[in-house]
């Protein structure tokens, strides 16, 4: 028996001017065919981005270099006689991620602008939200690799017991990165044709993702407290999950109308 989707989903999609999104939500075969096609498209875009990156290592190298440089500068400035100010490690970790992530977002979409390949992607019969998810997954992979380098580096330079709390630090980093990258991917795509995109991206992105960064920093600080305050870290993790749900949902809804000229 065919599943009937809620009428409000269709109405909201039409109201946003997003026929693809509306169709995506009201399709009776939503759970089967559409999900498979959606994932296939997203993975196809991800695989293409990985193939390009493997040929140049351009974005990965610049992002890692920038993130490490950022942590080193703060370490030279703040660590005196092997002692860092309290909570500095958490703040530096998230600041480095924020700045390196902004750099990666801009560069990733610069590739789609050069040669106007974004128009070819949008013209394809694939689901446009799936294109967004593909680009988002690429950014997440990139930031994941950056975090794998940053966490041990910050732990070493700031004598912070980050690696001792991986059971909670990992979810905090994953959720914080998803929240930041979800909004960042949307804005970077939206600003692709703007001449002032390099200036506008942080101006738009930082105020909206501030709650994510605050939750990430406070959650990480709670883990680094002596003794570790796990209930507080859990609370900030729950807040991050809520942000992720809101940001990812809104981004999926708005991607198609925002990309139309």
């Amino acid at each position, binding site marked *: 028996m065919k599943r009937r989707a809620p009428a409000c989903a269709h109405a909201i999609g039409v109201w946003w001017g997003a*026929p*693809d999104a509306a*169709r995506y939500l009201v399709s009776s075969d939503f759970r089967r065919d559409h999900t498979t*096609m959606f994932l296939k*498209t997203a993975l*196809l875009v991800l695989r*293409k981005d990985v*193939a*390009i990156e493997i*040929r*140049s290592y351009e974005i990965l190298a610049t992002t890692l270099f920038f993130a490490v440089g950022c942590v080193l500068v703060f370490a030279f400035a703040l660590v005196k006689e092997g002692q860092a100010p309290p909570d500095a490690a958490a703040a530096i970790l998230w600041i480095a991620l924020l700045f390196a992530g902004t750099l990666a977002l801009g560069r990733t979409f610069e*590739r789609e602008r*050069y*040669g*106007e*390949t974004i*128009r*070819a*992607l*949008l*013209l*394809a*019969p*694939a*689901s446009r939200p799936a294109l967004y998810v593909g680009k988002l997954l690429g950014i997440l992979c990139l930031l994941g690799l950056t975090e794998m380098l940053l966490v041990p580096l910050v732990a070493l330079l700031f004598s912070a017991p980050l690696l001792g709390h991986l059971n909670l630090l990992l979810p905090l980093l994953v959720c914080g990165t998803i929240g930041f990258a979800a909004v960042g991917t949307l804005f970077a795509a939206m600003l692709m044709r703007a001449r002032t995109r390099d200036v506008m991206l942080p101006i738009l992105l930082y105020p909206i993702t501030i709650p994510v960064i605050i939750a990430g920093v406070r959650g990480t600080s709670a883990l680094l407290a002596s003794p570790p305050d796990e209930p507080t870290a859990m609370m900030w993790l729950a807040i991050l999950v809520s942000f992720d749900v809101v940001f990812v949902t809104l981004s999926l809804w708005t991607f198609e109308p925002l990309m*139309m*000229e």
Partner: protein
Amino acid sequence: MDFDSVRLTDVSRHFGRRRALSKISLTLRSGDIVGLLGPNGAGKSTLIGVLATLVTATAGEVRYGQQQARDAGPELRRRIGLLAHELHLYGELTARQNLTFFASLYGLDPRPIVDAALERAMLADRADDPVSSFSRGMRQRLGLERALLHRPRLVLLDEPFTGLDDRSVGMVCERLRQLAGDGAIVMVATHDLDLADGLVTRVALMRDGRLLSDEAASAGLRSRYRSVVGSA
């Protein structure tokens, strides 16, 4: 979905206060090769963007057969092929990787069609070289094959002859005639009147976002262009 005509009725498009298209009414039919001619800034690329469903018309209506673009969605886009001035290719990827990616994005099995497309683009021996190492003409041929991979009904080409040598121009012209013969609707925006003369079956002349003339192609395209566009 499929269609055998595209009808534009009073289509306008404004970018802020600038009017890129002003009340364009035009019908394209299966088998047509329509030459879209006009000086720089005439609105040719915007019109192609509107036909490709990538640019939304501020006013007016575009119908593909019986359907409007906003009602059709992905199934309509499956029937449209676009080659713009920028060739929609990833320079870091090889020719084969580019074609395979776009074929997969259209839900096609890439294996048989990619090899055939590389043969037609005369790039079989360079299939595994990155596109950034190609000349403009080679990229142009590859871009054309990318746009035609999925056998579109509506073929939109913006300056398709840029960078091509005489032999390649002849092959592209022959390919376009073949597409039109198979029932495609082909629209070619170009500044090259000599190439358009003899290729196109209809001519749409534009200036300042307005359609000045839509007529059957006849000999002496250059003088007709001068009399309509130059004197308007």
